[in-house]
């Protein structure tokens, strides 16, 4: 079983990438579980044809942890991908970090954490311990950083690399960096910039996903690209990513860089 996690700045397109990756893996006949770890709960929506599935934490809140069943939390979506949304408390109340932990414990107890590939789509703009939880507790073994060439998005990716490096020092650590995915904004020099960034942090750019109108069109049809336009160029990009993820056995302990170096890098590649 492969357990991969996609991390990156909020709004960078982790959910779109995760959903299409899961769909591509599912289309290959693999048993895939995608878990959205964001209170926004929109990770699996396109896989579910636009349906908001009930979140684990909503169910726990309403019924109590002991009465929640697997069928209620795990829903089958496109290409047989099994979908879970962790959810969260209302904004500003309680501790969502603890909520993510509770979600994983429940799924584990229900025996739902299985399959050929588990894709964790982890929330972006979080600083508390909850966000590192999938890595820390050994659920996410291979971490992919999703970034564009924009400075703030590289900055976030670099910060996550720091978390991976820190966790890698622990004795029971099982997570490592598996690669960088460039979800492009179509800036000039972007591909080279992200490739160089990946190299500097001791990793590799494993996919370059160009910005495409097909993604937006699929979205308004409440579908993944894989379902909406299976023969499109964009679908081929996700298929390639899926193949790469499946065969990828090169992981590393990242070497995050300093903010200055990051800025220099951006200046060097950006064609302004």
């Amino acid at each position, binding site marked *: 079983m492969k357990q991969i996690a996609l991390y990156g700045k909020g709004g960078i397109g982790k959910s779109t990438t995760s959903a299409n990756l899961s769909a591509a893996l599912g289309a290959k006949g693999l048993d895939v579980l995608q878990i959205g770890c964001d209170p926004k709960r929109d990770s699996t929506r396109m896989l579910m044809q636009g349906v908001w599935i009930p979140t684990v*934490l909503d169910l726990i*809140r309403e019924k109590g*942890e002991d009465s929640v069943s697997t069928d209620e939390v795990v829903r089958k979506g496109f290409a047989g991908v099994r979908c879970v949304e962790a959810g969260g*408390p209302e904004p500003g*109340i*309680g*501790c*969502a970090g*603890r*909520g993510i932990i509770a979600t994983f414990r429940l799924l584990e107890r229900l025996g739902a954490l299985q399959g050929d590939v588990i894709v964790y789509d982890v929330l972006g703009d979080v600083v508390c311990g909850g966000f590192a939880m999938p890595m820390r507790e050994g659920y996410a073994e291979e971490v992919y950083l999703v970034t564009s060439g924009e400075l703030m998005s590289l900055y976030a990716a670099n910060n996550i690399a720091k978390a991976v490096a820190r966790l890698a020092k622990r004795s029971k650590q099982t997570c490592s960096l598996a690669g960088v995915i460039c979800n492009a904004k179509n800036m000039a020099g972007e591909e080279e910039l992200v490739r160089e960034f990946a190299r500097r942090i001791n990793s590799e750019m494993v996919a370059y996903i160009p910005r495409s109108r097909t993604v937006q069109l699929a979205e308004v049809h409440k579908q993944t690209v894989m379902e909406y336009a299976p023969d499109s160029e964009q679908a081929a990009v996700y298929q390639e990513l899926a193949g790469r993820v499946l065969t990828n056995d090169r992981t590393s302990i990242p070497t995050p860089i300093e903010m200055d170096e990051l800025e220099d890098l951006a200046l060097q590649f950006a064609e302004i």
Partner: protein
Amino acid sequence: MNSKTSHSSSQRYEGCTLTGALSITTQVEDAVTVVHGPEGCAHHNVSLLHAAMAEQGHPAIPKIVPTRLSEQGVIFGGEEDLAATLRAMADRRPGVIFVLTTCITETIGDDAASVCSEDYGVPVVLLPTAGFLGGCFSDGLNAALTTMAAKADPVEGAGETVTIIGEKNLEYEVEENFAEVERLLASLGLEVGLRFVRDVRYADLKQVGTGRLNVLREPSLAPVGEALKERFGTPYISSFPIGLDGSIAFLEEVGTLLGLRTDGAVRREEERQSAMLDSFADLRGSVFSIDPMTFRALECTPVRRVMEALDLQVDSDGAGVSLPYSPPVGTAGIRRLLHRWRRRVHA
């Protein structure tokens, strides 16, 4: 600032902030104290307070109710649990409900203040007591006293009685120590009105401003003494009298503050002290070995003075004794100490 956790000074008075506040709130007879947090935070305090009360001959179960925060409360916020507990407790019509927060509820950011500010039909008093924010036992105790003092009614003109502030409700000899102070005050013709806070009802607390004089249990309560002085103009003495000289100084200080003649009372106290020392003449020249755990208390001058007066020696061959954690209060405190030592010598 956090002053706990040093191993060398660890004792019951340096625990969690919650424990400090509970040692006060649980002394209000008609109060219920709600601990907003996991059950464990309440449980170990209940055991401790129960044991302390039993030692003092009052084996009552302290009225502490936890909101029993579980993982569900931590994830979704515990405000509703708190409100539900407050409603349930209010149905029992207590004189007051004290609400104490804990590490976990402060960490997840529950807005206990707004939950407490709703109308439950009984007074609800909030005390933030999360230990991890840097507080320790004495911070909780001071905060409880200060908050309660702030609720007191304004008064016109000083009354006749003396108010005792901040007794150490968890110490073994709390009643004996109180009795000694009461005796010394009586020798000047003064009466104790309110014990703030011990064996009182919530309504009594409102009278904290009506005393002529406040006597603090120990100097660390100075902020409470100052607050009361500022609000009601009541002068204060910063500590219970310690040992023999302390008793004399106490009488003189009370006299100065209240403009009373003290020579008669001082003379009678001195006579009492020398008679007491004479009654221990059999101990003269005895040798003691002091329990190393309590050895530092030897630096306590009042104990040294008595040892000198009776020519007592310290040597590892002597009869083993330990010294009290808190210095002996008044002439009676010294007498009890010597009684214990005598039992060791004759053991």
